[in-house]
């Protein structure tokens, strides 16, 4: 097994609207920042992979223009997942594991502001039986929240506490969109209140991966990927236990998350109730710093929010604030698909 690490991370300031910016405009500063942190140029990177979704841009092949922002000439070795950038990072990690590349640039972006994101996400659902009914993303999350309440796993005040704690943590995060004392608000879809739901926003993020000594040369304290895995569940909500997340548990097992305790966890839980599910499945105690960035409740640029969890966890290790961190990303309604990575600083490995 090659040792691969996240050596640099950059993100945009996430905002409700960025009408004045194209996707490339949104992405360029982030790409420059992450490359600048390592002094690498685009054509020195071994492999590039991105994550985004055409449906946010409202047009086919939207990522082809984003590539212009990379400065991809001379031609680069490059790929794209129509998923959250966390899965682009996974593809890039595999590429480095084959030995075909020593470094990788991973980026992701999403502009939710041009459309109605709750409506847009309904298009992810079974196109014949479910999507025509337009059940939106908040309504589906509310089903999951109600299932948790019915099972006695949480209640509305506890959910409000999750929201408050995340947004309080986000006060220290200059990139976050929603921070501090955010009111719980009225019910959006029972039992979820506006405060239980993520902000809608635009944003971008990028990381650089490197192997072995290259990583050590590029970063003082690389965040080594000790394990990374992702799993998917059935699509139909009727065949899933929404109070559980077996795919997260399986991914965590395969990533080695349960072998030793972690000190930090960055969870991609856009809804407060989803943090309850993930904490339980991952067995995170009160001694673990969960979402010190504020998580997706503070900023949820769709398709980048998962990659940001990996970046935030890595940045904690870079800064010496964490020795062993768990990062999680999700995709699909009600935590259908989940990715877990375990990151460690050098000292924790020795």
């Amino acid at each position, binding site marked *: 097994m090659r040792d691969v690490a996240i050596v640099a991370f950059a993100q945009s300031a996430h905002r409700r609207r960025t009408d004045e910016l*194209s996707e490339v405009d949104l992405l360029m500063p982030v790409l420059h920042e992450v490359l600048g942190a390592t002094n690498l140029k685009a054509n020195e990177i071994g492999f*590039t992979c991105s994550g985004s*979704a*055409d*449906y946010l*841009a*409202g*047009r*086919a*092949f939207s*990522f*082809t*223009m984003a*590539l*212009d922002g990379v*400065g*991809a*000439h*001379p*031609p*680069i*070795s*490059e*790929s*794209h*997942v*129509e*998923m959250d950038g966390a*899965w682009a990072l*996974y*593809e890039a990690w*595999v*590429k480095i*594991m*084959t*030995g*075909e590349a020593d470094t990788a640039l991973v980026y992701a972006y999403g502009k939710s502001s041009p459309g109605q994101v709750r409506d*847009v996400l309904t*298009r*992810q*659902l079974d*196109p*014949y039986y479910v*999507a025509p009914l337009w059940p939106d993303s908040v309504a589906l999350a509310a089903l999951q929240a109600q299932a948790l309440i019915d099972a006695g796993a949480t209640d509305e005040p506890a959910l409000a506490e999750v929201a408050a704690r995340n947004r309080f943590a986000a006060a220290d995060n200059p990139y976050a969109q929603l921070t501090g004392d955010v009111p719980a608000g009225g019910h959006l879809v029972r039992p979820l209140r506006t405060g239980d739901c993520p902000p809608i926003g635009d944003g971008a993020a990028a990381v650089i991966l490197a192997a072995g000594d290259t990583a050590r040369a590029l970063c003082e304290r690389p965040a080594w990927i000790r394990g990374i*895995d*992702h*799993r*998917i*569940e*059935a*699509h*139909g909500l009727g065949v899933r236990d929404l109070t559980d997340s*077996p*795919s997260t548990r*399986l991914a965590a097992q395969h990533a080695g998350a349960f072998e030793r305790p972690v000190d930090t966890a960055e969870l991609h839980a856009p809804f407060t109730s989803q943090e309850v599910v993930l904490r339980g499945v991952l067995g995170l105690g009160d001694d673990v710093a969960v979402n010190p960035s504020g998580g997706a409740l503070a900023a949820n640029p769709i398709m980048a929010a998962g990659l940001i969890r990996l970046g935030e966890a890595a940045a904690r290790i870079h800064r010496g604030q964490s020795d062993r961190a768990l990062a999680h990303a999700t*995709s*699909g*309604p009600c935590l*259908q*698909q989940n990715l877990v990575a375990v990151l460690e600083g050098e000292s924790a490995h020795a």
Partner: protein
Amino acid sequence: MPKEPVAVVGIGQTKHVAARHDVSIAGLVREAAVRALEDAGLTWSDIDAVVIGKAPDFFEGVMMPELYLADALGAVGKPMLRVHTAGSVGGSTALVAAGLIAARVHRTVLTLAFEKQSESNAMWGLSLPVPFQQPLLAGAGGFFAPHVRAYMRRTGAPDTVGSLVAYKDRRNALKNPYAHIHDHDITLEKVQSSPMLWDPVRYSETCPSSDGACAMILTDREGAARSPHPPAWVHGGAMRSEPTLFAGKDFVSPQAGKDCAADVYRQAGIADPRREIDAVEMYVPFSWYEPMWLENLGFADEGEGWKLTEAGVTEIDGDLPVNPSGGVLSTNPIGASGMIRFAEAALQVRGAAGDHQVDGAARALGHAYGGGAQFFSMWLVGAEPPAG
């Protein structure tokens, strides 16, 4: 530690047609996957991960359809990755799947690509105007026709070459039971008298819109040893990308295509592709791209590609058969078209291509491209395992 060798042990396709009204998207992909599993002599439980690709989600109106397709593809409880690199996606998807095995992350992977174009309108899907961005208003044909014209002007190719390619590919398609267009009355005159769509591209020199799926089972050395049929071995694979538009971009022969081919040949130890490669499955959505890509891929010198086509070199019984399956010109479920090229190359070296088998094909190239001729993916497969 060197990479794990990757073998193709199962291939499945659907019969490609204009509209599969009898199946859902899930039914369509499952049909191809089941055929690939049967070919490999494996069951769903043998599969460690699924890598799925297709072209834009707007073509079926489903955002990130892998979520909905997880059940149909036996992916529940497994890793599932969704690749999207425009028209090259079928090839890229196979390469991402191969990477999982080469890196020893997984041992046996199902990879699949599909398009069910009948559920939408590809022309519309490619023509949505967006602020800030260059609109692609006339679908793919309108974008590529000027580049074909540039090729003709640059090389002095006679305007008959395009119809020769179409005539050849449509005849080859008659030998391929899975091909979409089976025109039993095809003649060269018929191609030449078909309506002009985007000058110089005629109706019969244009790919159809197809519903279809293609699946492959990729596995490691141990998995290949258990395979009931001869595997195809991956000797080289690469992707290259360049921006859509930039000063100095050569749309006739993009640098990314040249670099991608050169990387694949280097990996496979090929010095003279024209002599050392026995069959080519090339992404030719408009007939003129055959001579163009012959040059771009190093099979002919610059300006000489059309001469190979004109001399019959690329015929199925020629010296360098191109698209013995009938190619994209006869079958185009867009997101699957690249994977079909990769799979057809593998069928050739497995000796399993049936009536469109090229005699003694031991090494074959699968090629795909996409976007504004900016994304390239290719692999070279052989009948023998790679050295080392």
